[in-house]
């Protein structure tokens, strides 16, 4: 892999506009990645999802040079209908179309320049890979005191024109003071057997509100990793919702730093998996100052050899008195070929805190099925009703009514 990496790296940047300082900077990340390689079972974080092995079995050797020059057509069928929204369309990692028609032009700034200071280092080897190969840093800034009037949908399309097996995408968002943004990420894949590595970085200044909904429901054979870093100042709020269902493999890692008093973070998610899919949500919510709050609810429904993992960590520093931290994961295993691994962790250094965690997994309750059937519904309907109810609980945590209904209809949940 080393030779391929160096070759593809040189090819990627030989005609680039980046100056040699920036390229050398990227080279450092490349060297770090070469040294560490793809993460595997030997690392605690990857114990339940051996990415190195999964990539080897599902894709084989990776190539990294992504010549994205062939243009891609965009047509109206690519957009969600019946739902007013702003949109950004990424196709094979390139921003093809940006449409912020509902917003005031001078309140939102978009740039794609690569800036050294916006690069986070030493998070993990996949972020290093991302830093090495992303030529652009997509940055969206919401200016002070501005609230997005309509949600922003980012469409992440891939198609068969991808030349490499690996795709890296880097997205930065800065929400200035007293702003709000509702962001929906829709993953829609027409490519096969690619490793897609996305890095999101959110900076929430005082009183900012971010609601981010990540939706992966289309069946595809891609392997995905996304790392989301959220930095939160005083009185800011982040709501992250993950609907993870479509890809062969998907690991969503959320790192949230509650740096300011009265900031709060909500992470809710559904892993609904069948056909040998293997998905993971790993969270690390760090309470770093007084009076901050976090809440996590993850539910999984598994069938047909599927495997789900939830590693949820709440960290409370010694300065973070009056922390309120909560997390719960529940899984329904519909068949005994399925597997659910949960690793809830609390690491607490302050003494005046309220923290709890819980995890439960099991099959559907046969007595509940009997009860429902005795009221005239057949076995399949009874089962669906119970699963529907189980998942609805998470969907109901979505605080935006319009988006809640959108997501409900996407997965066919009934009230």
């Amino acid at each position, binding site marked *: 892999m080393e030779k391929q990496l160096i070759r593809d790296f040189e090819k990627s940047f030989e005609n680039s506009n980046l100056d040699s300082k920036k390229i050398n900077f990227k080279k450092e990340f490349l060297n770090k990645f070469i040294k560490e390689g793809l993460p595997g079972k030997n690392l605690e974080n990857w114990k339940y999802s051996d990415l190195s092995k999964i990539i080897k079995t599902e894709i084989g050797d990776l190539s990294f040079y992504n010549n994205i020059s062939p243009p891609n057509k965009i047509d109206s069928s690519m957009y969600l209908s019946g739902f007013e929204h702003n949109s950004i369309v990424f196709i094979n990692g390139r921003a093809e179309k940006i449409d912020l028609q509902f917003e005031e032009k001078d309140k939102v700034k978009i740039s794609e320049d690569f800036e050294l200071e916006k690069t986070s280092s030493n998070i993990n080897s996949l972020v290093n890979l991302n830093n090495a190969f992303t030529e652009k840093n997509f940055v969206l800034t919401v200016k002070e005191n501005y609230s997005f009037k309509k949600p922003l949908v980012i469409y992440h399309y891939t198609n068969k024109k991808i030349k490499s097996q690996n795709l890296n995408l880097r997205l930065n968002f800065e929400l200035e003071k007293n702003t709000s943004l509702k962001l929906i990420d829709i993953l829609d894949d027409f490519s096969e057997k690619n490793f897609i590595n996305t890095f999101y970085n959110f900076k929430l200044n005082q009183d900012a509100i971010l609601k981010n909904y990540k939706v992966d429901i289309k069946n595809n054979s891609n392997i995905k990793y996304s790392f989301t870093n959220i930095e939160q100042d005083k009185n800011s709020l982040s709501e992250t919702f993950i609907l993870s269902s479509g890809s062969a493999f998907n690991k969503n890692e959320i790192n949230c730093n509650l740096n300011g008093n009265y900031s709060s973070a909500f992470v809710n998610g559904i892993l609904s998996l069948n056909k040998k899919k293997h998905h993971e949500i790993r969270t690390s919510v760090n309470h770093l100052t007084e009076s901050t709050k976090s809440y996590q609810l993850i539910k999984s429904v598994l069938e047909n050899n599927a495997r789900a993992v939830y590693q949820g960590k709440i960290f409370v520093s010694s300065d973070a008195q009056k922390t309120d931290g909560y997390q719960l994961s529940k899984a329904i295993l519909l068949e005994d070929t399925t597997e659910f691994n949960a690793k809830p962790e609390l690491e607490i250094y302050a003494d005046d805190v309220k923290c709890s965690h819980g995890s439960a997994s099991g099959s559907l*309750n*046969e*007595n*509940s099925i*009997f*009860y*429902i*059937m*005795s*009221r*005239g*519904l*057949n*076995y399949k*309907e009874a089962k669906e*009703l*119970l699963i*529907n*109810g*189980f*998942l*609805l*609980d998470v969907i109901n945590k979505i605080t935006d009514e319009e988006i809640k209904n959108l997501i409900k209809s996407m997965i066919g949940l*009934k*009230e």
Partner: protein
Amino acid sequence: MLKINNLKAKVGEKSILNDFSLDIKPGEVHAIMGPNGSGKSTLSNILSGKKGYDVSGEIKFEGIDLFSLETEERAHKGIFLAFQYPLEIPGVNTNIFLKTSLNAIRKARGEKELDALEFLKLVKQKSKELKFDEEKLNRQLNVGFSGGEKKKNEILQMSILNPKLSILDETDSGLDIDALKTVAQGVNALRKKNNSFLIITHYQRLLDYIKPDHVHVLMNGKITKSGGPELALELEKKGYEGLN
């Protein structure tokens, strides 16, 4: 309406019902009384088609072999079981569940399904009759309901589904006297020439309000004595041990 002949039921090697026979005619109310472990709940489970029992013998409901029907098909034919311990079903709205249930049964019978408005009218009327707090219908099914509310909810479901044969499995246990009267009122309102009831109970108390046509004593898996309402009173005085 319901004819049980020589019903035997076992769980593993353990025999629970033994040569149990019973004949319920349209419009009749039968009460089965028996001590703990006599097989009362097994009987109601088997009538509703719960899995997990080895059974032999014969049960006919309106001439149809009950063993050939799945649980939901028995509901479609008009059998209703009010559970001893109604299940909590998180995430399922009570109102919507009731409507889904009623329409599943109507559909199976080839009747027109009720629309939201028609259903609302029906459920309002029935809740009022049974003094069931309508606000609870917007909650998740039985979740956070008290023991008495759960039982009343069973009776509400019964009156909405209007079954031919209602089996009440210890519906009276855990009810205060007011709730007991309401439950009895719900049963009595459904008592018609074609609706039958099988009331399974420990105590005679409920039978003060629902007058049965026949009372049976179930011990060790078979009926040891049958009689009229006076048998229940006798039981109350003498206890099961003193009956022989």
